[in-house]
């Protein structure tokens, strides 16, 4: 492998994912329209996965689910190695912390550590 190929690729890939997932600046040379299409598509897929894993939150939030999730997603891009269930849990915690979802019901008495 040529010297620096991995480093140059790492930088380019990181720049692209930051733009698509975390609202970072558009990398040079990409079609702006296609960047928006891709960002929307990735967000829709992630939202769909969380909707399946957190149906109660989706019911509770109804029309507010989509805008709330999209706001959460932009400020909390998925990190390498994270799991979809963790994403769903992090979203509901986030929505709860903002008062968009009711507080967690007390769990069974023997489970001392509440999430």
């Amino acid at each position, binding site marked *: *492998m*040529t010297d620096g*190929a*991995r*480093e*140059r*690729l*790492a930088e*380019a*890939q*990181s*720049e*692209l*994912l*930051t733009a*698509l*997932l*975390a609202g970072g600046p558009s990398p*040079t*040379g*990409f*079609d702006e329209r*296609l*960047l928006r*299409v*891709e960002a929307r*598509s*990735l967000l829709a*897929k*992630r939202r769909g*996965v969380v909707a399946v894993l957190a149906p109660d939150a989706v019911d509770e939030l109804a029309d507010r689910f989509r805008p709330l999730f999209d706001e959460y997603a932009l400020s909390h*891009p*998925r*990190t*390498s*190695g*994270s799991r979809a269930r963790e994403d769903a849990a992090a979203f509901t915690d986030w929505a709860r912390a903002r008062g968009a979802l009711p507080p967690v019901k007390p769990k069974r008495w023997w489970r001392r550590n509440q999430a």
Partner: protein
Amino acid sequence: MGAVDRLGVGIGWRAEIDLTVERLPDVDFVEVVAENLHVEHLPESIVLLRERGVPVLPHAVSLSLGSADPVDAHRVEHLGAVAEALGAPLVSDHVCFVRAGGLDSGHLMPVPRTRDALDVLVANVRTAQANLPVPLALENIAALLEWPDGELTEGQFLAELVERTDCFLLIDVANLHANARNLGTDPNRFLDEIPLERLAYVHVAGGVETDGVYHDTHAHAVHPEVLDLLGELRSRVDPPGVLLERDDNYPSDSELAAEMAAIRAVLAGHG
């Protein structure tokens, strides 16, 4: 360089359609998403299909072999373990990346078609191959965007990948259609450029077009243009296998059977 044994016409096994897959007529082989399987607890339906002698091929989505990040040994190890548990003749993943800079895209992303990216991909593929018990096939993806400054066409990129790693190809004709529709790539040129003798099998899937963008959803019916591309491929080579992928919004058994029959008809039409 060997060839892949004949697989026939198959369907992607998913837990939601396990009974459907078991009772559909003429399922010659199935594919499972490797990340969804635990070697110690294989689904009963998969065990049943194996007992019937139906080949079950693990298909991975998370190796991220196009990533600048080093190959994740645990993911490769898991894929290999699944292949051994299933007695699979080969495994597959995609020419793509999903992780970079500590972020996870959650979906298959295209790699730049540059020498740098090809060198990294080749190194990663060799690492994976060295740690897998069976051959690896790599699939072309549906991309919604294109990197600037590409030095090779997609076909040239895959051809060189095969030459340098001896991997097999898994060609998804729905992805070819998606790229033609969304990015203006030429599927015929793609088919001309890839080494068809290294074709392991073919994917066929449905999608939907919204606002002028074709989305490779695997949740809608197979478009006629996709079957036309299968015919185009069939006019050049007799593929060892063709597999229908359906991942959501599952239709009736008869609709899935009809889509498999349509695939068989295309293959036979060029016999």
